[in-house]
């Protein structure tokens, strides 16, 4: 329970209407079912929620937290377990009132945004200027600032626009003690055009690969790199999702490529990367398309062996690449390159933009990543074993491992039947490296599904180690103590960073560097045994 004095101090700073300690109101920040393997789905209830409206207000409320021994954690649209508190005594900062696009610098191709600007909003405004922004795989509802400063950031457009950690330029950062720090060029009083200075460049400390997920203080403004958008200022679209019919610019091509086997897909994609073409790219299973579009039909198909075989075997090695050219010559060149590479590797490509009805569904659903949340349609929720960034070949192996693990769970009724092959994959920067995480579909109202959820990550980690792959990265403080020794004691360094920036005791560092003992044997005794053996071998 927060004291009246602390609450009153918050109210003075942000106004009474922007503070609450009502239990039911606080619970709206504690219900976090997505990527939460706790069957209860409730995380710690914050002691209060505060909505600051400016950087100065953030500094002030942080100082009040420090004075009263309260931790704090900022959140934006708040999708995912990492958005909520990880312990008692946490004040949730809902950044919703800080929702402005401060500027879009057309010439230098960047935008300065506040925390609550969404990917959809930024993209809509950028497109008017012939620019585009990276939208993460979680979709256009997410905050570009949150992703750029605080967590992951992979998406379908990474082949062209890289991922969030690479696109952050300048940052305005309220440290856990309330002090203000600027990174990149704004740190030297310049414009926001470069993340590495002149001015302090702490990009690695700021977030590293996965991000501190709220454990570092509060990021109140940041500059996001923008990219070329050779399409119209508005992609006129009728309809909402699967009924969407967009105008199709002449300079876009949408190829669904099918290959006869894994190796040919792997090699073809390497060549596509070498050719430096593509605007969006992903390897996705046709069954994922199908269950997102028609979940009821999909349930029937899973009971039909011939169709099951067609989707999960014959058409399994599918690769999607969207091309955009700045001229007719460029799009024709890219188109020809894709067709040649696909042909060289005995595949075939369906160019979808000319296909009636289906073609016009694709542009906005892919360019805005609006289609992604359709994966909710099969069962209502999903979780992921998370992932790490590796070479394309390694990631294809990892996807196959995921399929093997998933199929066993499907047989045992522990997750929904998605036909097994369900990785989320993306290529970074013309395939110099790539991302893969394995998705598990389940119904949060199904007790059997909930029962074994928490063993997915551990099982995946063990399997990775068994086949000599790197362990997966995770924000889960319960496995950090286990993962640390396997990953060069990374968490020792994260804790050092947190201490240096005064985070410990002030910011909610649960998702960043806190450690707790975790008994894996509660879920599966064999898992614990296997993991201990692997750790011993690794040491």
């Amino acid at each position, binding site marked *: 329970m927060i004291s009246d004095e602390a609450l009153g101090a918050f109210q003075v700073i942000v106004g009474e*209407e*922007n503070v*609450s300690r*009502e*239990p*039911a*109101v606080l*619970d*709206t*920040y504690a*219900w*976090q*079912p*997505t990527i939460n393997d706790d069957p209860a*789905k409730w995380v710690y*209830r914050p002691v209060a*929620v505060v*909505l600051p409206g400016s950087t100065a207000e953030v500094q002030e409320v942080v100082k009040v937290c420090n004075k009263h021994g309260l931790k704090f954690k900022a959140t934006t*649209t*708040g*999708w995912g377990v990492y958005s909520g508190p990880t312990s008692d005594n946490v004040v949730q900062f*809902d950044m*919703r*009132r800080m929702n402005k*696009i401060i500027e879009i610098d057309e010439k230098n191709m960047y935008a300065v945004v506040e925390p609550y*600007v*969404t990917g*959809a*909003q*930024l*993209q*809509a*405004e950028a497109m008017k200027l012939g620019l585009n922004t990276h939208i993460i795989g979680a*979709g*256009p*509802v997410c905050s570009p600032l949150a992703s750029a400063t605080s967590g992951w950031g992979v998406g379908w457009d990474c082949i062209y626009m890289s991922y969030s950690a690479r696109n952050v330029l300048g940052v305005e950062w309220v440290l856990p003690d309330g002090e203000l720090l600027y990174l990149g060029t704004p740190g030297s009083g310049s414009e926001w055009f470069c993340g590495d200075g002149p001015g302090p460049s702490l990009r690695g400390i700021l977030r590293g690969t996965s991000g501190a997920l709220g454990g570092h203080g509060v990021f109140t403004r940041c500059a996001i790199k923008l990219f070329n958008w050779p399409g119209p200022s*508005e992609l006129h*679209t009728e*309809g*909402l*999702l699967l*009924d*969407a019919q*967009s105008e199709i610019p002449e300079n876009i091509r949408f190829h669904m490529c099918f290959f006869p086997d894994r190796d040919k897909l792997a090699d073809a994609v390497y060549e596509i990367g070498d050719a430096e073409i593509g605007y969006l790219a992903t390897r996705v299973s046709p069954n994922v398309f199908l269950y997102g579009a028609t*979940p*009821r039909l999909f*349930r029937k198909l899973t009971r039909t062996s011939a169709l099951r075989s067609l989707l999960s075997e014959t058409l399994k090695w599918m690769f999607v690449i969207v091309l955009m050219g700045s001229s007719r010559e460029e799009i024709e060149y890219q188109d020809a390159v894709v067709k040649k590479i696909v042909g060289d590797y005995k595949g075939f490509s369906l160019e979808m933009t000319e296909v009636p009805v289906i073609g016009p569904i694709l542009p*906005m*659903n892919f360019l*805005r990543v*609006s289609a992604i*949340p*359709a994966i*909710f*349609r*099969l069962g*209502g929720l999903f979780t992921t074993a998370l992932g790490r960034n590796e070479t394309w070949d390694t990631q294809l192996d990892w996807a196959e491992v995921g399929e093997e693990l998933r199929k066993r769970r499907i047989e045992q009724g522990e997750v929904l039947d998605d036909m097994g092959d369900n990785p989320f994959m993306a290529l970074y920067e013309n395939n110099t490296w790539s991302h893969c995480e394995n998705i598990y579909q389940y*119904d*949060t*109202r199904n007790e059997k599904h909930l029962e074994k959820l928490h063993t997915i990550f551990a099982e995946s980690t063990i399997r990775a180690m068994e086949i000599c792959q790197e362990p997966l990265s995770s924000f889960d403080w319960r496995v950090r103590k286990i993962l640390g020794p396997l990953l060069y004691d990374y968490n020792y360094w994260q804790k050092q960073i947190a201490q240096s920036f005064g985070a410990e005791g002030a910011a909610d560092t649960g998702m960043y560097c806190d450690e707790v003992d975790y008994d894996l044997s509660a879920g599966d005794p064999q898992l614990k045994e296997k993991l201990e053996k692997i750790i011993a071998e690794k040491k």
Partner: protein
Amino acid sequence: MALEDYKNDMEGCSRCSSCKWIPFNQVKSWRFAHNCPAISRYNLHAYSGSGKMIMGLSMLTGRSELNESIMDIIFTCQLCGACDTACKVYRDDIDLMDVLLELRTHCVEEGELVIEHMATIDALKRENNMLGEKKEARGDWADGLPVKDINQETVDVLFHAGCRYSYDQDSREALRGIVKLLVDSGVDVGIAGASETCCGGRAYKFGYQGEAENYADDMLSRVKSSGASLLVTPCADGYSAFNYLYPRMKKELPVEVLHISQYLERLLKNGEINLKNNVPRKVTYHDPCYLGRMGEPYLGDWQDSKLLRPMSMKRAGRNGVYDTPRDIIKQIPALELVEMERIREYSWCCGAGGGVWEAYPDFAVWTASERIEEALSTGADTLVTSCPWCLRVFREALAETEKDLRIMDISELFLESAGICSPATLKGGGAL
């Protein structure tokens, strides 16, 4: 039904926040990307569709208790259904709107009552209308019109004026003009006059389901005795109540129900009316929630898991009345229609619905002002709607500004072009 019956819906919330935005494929700007007035104005997640569902789950599972503050948040909502539409872009297994309605009923049953709503319901019981006006005066708007009285004779078409239209002086000429137009066109139309009562739709939204059922029974008997095969209403709230709420309460009317815009379009198609006069205006059209996404006919109950529910059984807003008013507008000579960014099933609410007008008038006007800003951004000189509640709150909001914009009902626009009424006699048609 009880809150417990919606546990699956509430537990299904992934807290993705999609309910706060228009469907993402339709986001065209930073400024007009939001869909929910409550979260847009008050910011705490609790005000969003998701937040209200989570609060419901929290109370249902004993984590928190209903109190005045929570009741206030539950009712600070127009029940416009924008969150429900946005949620259903992705979800088949959640009926967010049903949860919002049930939360209100839960408040009423638990004795957490909005004082202003209590007063309105008391007046409704006494005077049979939502405005507290004298029931004897309900039919005064039709004085001198050569229209049949259904209490005296049977008719083919029953015209239900609705509470707001019956008493709103600013809309009187338009209402009279429409009925005169129907009579002059040879339609065998009648009204209930002073014996017309509220449809009960707004009482239902206040959480008073019993009152709504009483008025549905009353309406049902009146329709049956009128001999009509068609009911026409200019009230979007009434249209939704008759088409959706009544069948849901198992009190389906045994007649076809049309909004006035649908009936006028029918008369136009049949060549019984012509739109001959130029109306040299640049107009933008506001989709009323209860003619649009919430105006969809009732689809029936679905008893199985909602995950298995076919699209045809999902109330997703796609079958609302969107094209009809636009088709009429496009037929008016010299008139230019320009669209706002938030239209059709992802339209921004006017602000007057769900009891907000009665209990939180500042919030209603704020919401309307947002829409007026959006209308002005199109360059339109006229904002057209087809609901008397929208009309009223837009006019109230506009009166608080220096903005130069005309607010018109689709009927007024129609009458002006049909030559039935002159612009000077219509509230929206005259000079500001």
